[in-house]
């Protein structure tokens, strides 16, 4: 699997991304995923317009914008989860390690691009079986219990659950359930982890734990997070993309976007004038 190689790919980036990334972090030109000229439609309604950006290797990229701006839709194109909705289709190109994601088998793609959802959604199974699920369905040859422990450690949940791995996942608190979902996604060793407002159903303490975790997880995978919380984007991410009514308005290194936004609409949004 390519995950172990982690190639630093130089791909032709669309201008907006190149300029933003090249200024601050030249090494960030290694892109895990590249989105070019992406249009997205729900039936006749277009919800994304000509979006082009890159997701840098081992960085946190956050997508922000007001409700309905298309940030969740954009996230769901990256592992093709949009396909579960009837009438949804896209135009454009999305590359993962230089290969089109649309050309590959969707189940194989989703093993490489994991996802964590808005509300914790553990399976009605034990803690162990939740984390082991991805390994089992993918017929992993690894010793499962080692992999489960490793994933739970990565998700900073191991110490809290190691003595009752066989209890139902529903006995955990909401924050623990969400970290369990992260561990479940990490177990199949994805190259990219997508998080769709992972803290919106959690209390501040659980949120802080998850944010801390995301920063640590950068070392083992590339992270893309959708958030409606601008402070969260500022705290955890290296790059931030601001979307408005389906268009990518600005995509910059996070400190730059929040201190010297290049577009008046970005400035209006981050200073709280709308959204």
């Amino acid at each position, binding site marked *: 699997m390519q995950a172990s190689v982690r190639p630093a790919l130089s791909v032709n980036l669309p201008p907006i991304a190149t300029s933003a990334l090249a200024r601050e972090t030249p090494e960030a030109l290694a892109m895990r995923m590249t989105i070019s000229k992406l249009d997205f439609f729900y039936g006749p309604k277009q919800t994304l317009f000509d979006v082009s950006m890159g997701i840098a290797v081992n960085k946190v990229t956050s997508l922000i914008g007001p409700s309905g701006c298309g940030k969740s839709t954009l996230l769901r194109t990256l592992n093709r989860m949009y396909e579960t909705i009837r009438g949804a289709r896209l135009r454009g190109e999305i590359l993962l390690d230089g290969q089109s994601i649309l050309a590959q088998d969707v189940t194989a793609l989703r093993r490489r691009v994991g996802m964590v959802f808005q509300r914790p959604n553990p*399976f009605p199974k034990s803690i162990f079986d939740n984390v082991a*699920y991805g390994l089992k369905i993918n017929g992993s040859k690894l010793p499962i219990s080692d992999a489960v422990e490793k994933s739970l450690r990565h998700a900073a949940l191991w110490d809290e659950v190691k003595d009752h791995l066989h209890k139902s996942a529903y006995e955990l608190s909401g924050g623990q359930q969400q970290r369990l979902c992260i561990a479940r996604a990490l177990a*199949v060793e994805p190259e990219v982890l997508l998080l769709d407002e992972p803290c919106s159903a959690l209390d501040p303490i659980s949120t802080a734990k998850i944010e801390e975790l995301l920063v640590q997880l950068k070392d083992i995978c590339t992270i893309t997070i959708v958030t409606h919380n601008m402070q969260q984007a500022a705290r955890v991410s290296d790059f931030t993309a601001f979307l408005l009514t389906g268009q990518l308005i600005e995509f910059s290194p996070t400190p730059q976007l929040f201190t010297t936004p290049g577009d008046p609409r970005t400035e209006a949004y981050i200073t709280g004038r709308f959204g």
Partner: protein
Amino acid sequence: MSPRLRWRKFVSGFMLTMTGVCALVAVSVLFLILGYLAIHGGASVNWNFFTKLPVPVGETGGGMANAILGSAKMLLLATLFGVPIGFFGAIYLAEFSGSTTAFFVRYAADLLNGVPSIVIGIFAYGLVVHPFKQYSTLAGGFALGLMMIPITLRSTEEFLRGVPNPLREAAMALGASKWKTIATVIVPAAYRGILTAILLAFARVAGETAPLLFTALGNQFWSPGWTHPTASLPVMIYTYALAPYDDWHRQAWAAGLVLLVLILVINIVARAILSRGIAVPRS
């Protein structure tokens, strides 16, 4: 107290009493039936009833062992035939079909559920009994199985639809195919409900008489194999209750009691399974 307030209090009290009495009547019917059966048939429910064949008119004693076995064999066939069709049909409806197909299949299932059981009997007669010129256990099981299909299908579908969508997304986001998601997450999450649905369908057809009159016919003796006419508890009740012999009447009461207790027990077990909690909390 003003007359108006007094009148309102009276109406309120009257309605409360009336609804309470109606609820009481509704509940007591079940216990009246149980009590009535117990009084008339209780004495005849003994070891012989479960182990002996019916005896010729005039002799006392004897039992309905052949009818019990016949019912069990036909219910087994019905379950093997009706449950898989209902179950997989429900999976198709809940997980795969578009809304138009689902609408028609659901509507058809509801209509099938409403088809009088005697019509199901005639249909099974025309399809299985007539061509082979033979009443049989198979034909009886087929007729009962037909009745189980819509009951299993509709309730299984409801329970599958009750599984929250985020669970489907979670499995698919881990690279599970649609079928893998269904087999490893959705069905396990709904299994209590599905089991209940199957038990209730079973209990529902266990007491059916009409479909068996034309298919299994009846038999005073053991029915070997699957291709001969067979006795069954409901048909035995029908035959014995209409006969002019007191001894047969007592046996019919006993059979009714046994059948009712069986159905009650299945119902209670089904509710107990369900009340142990749906595995998935509803959000």
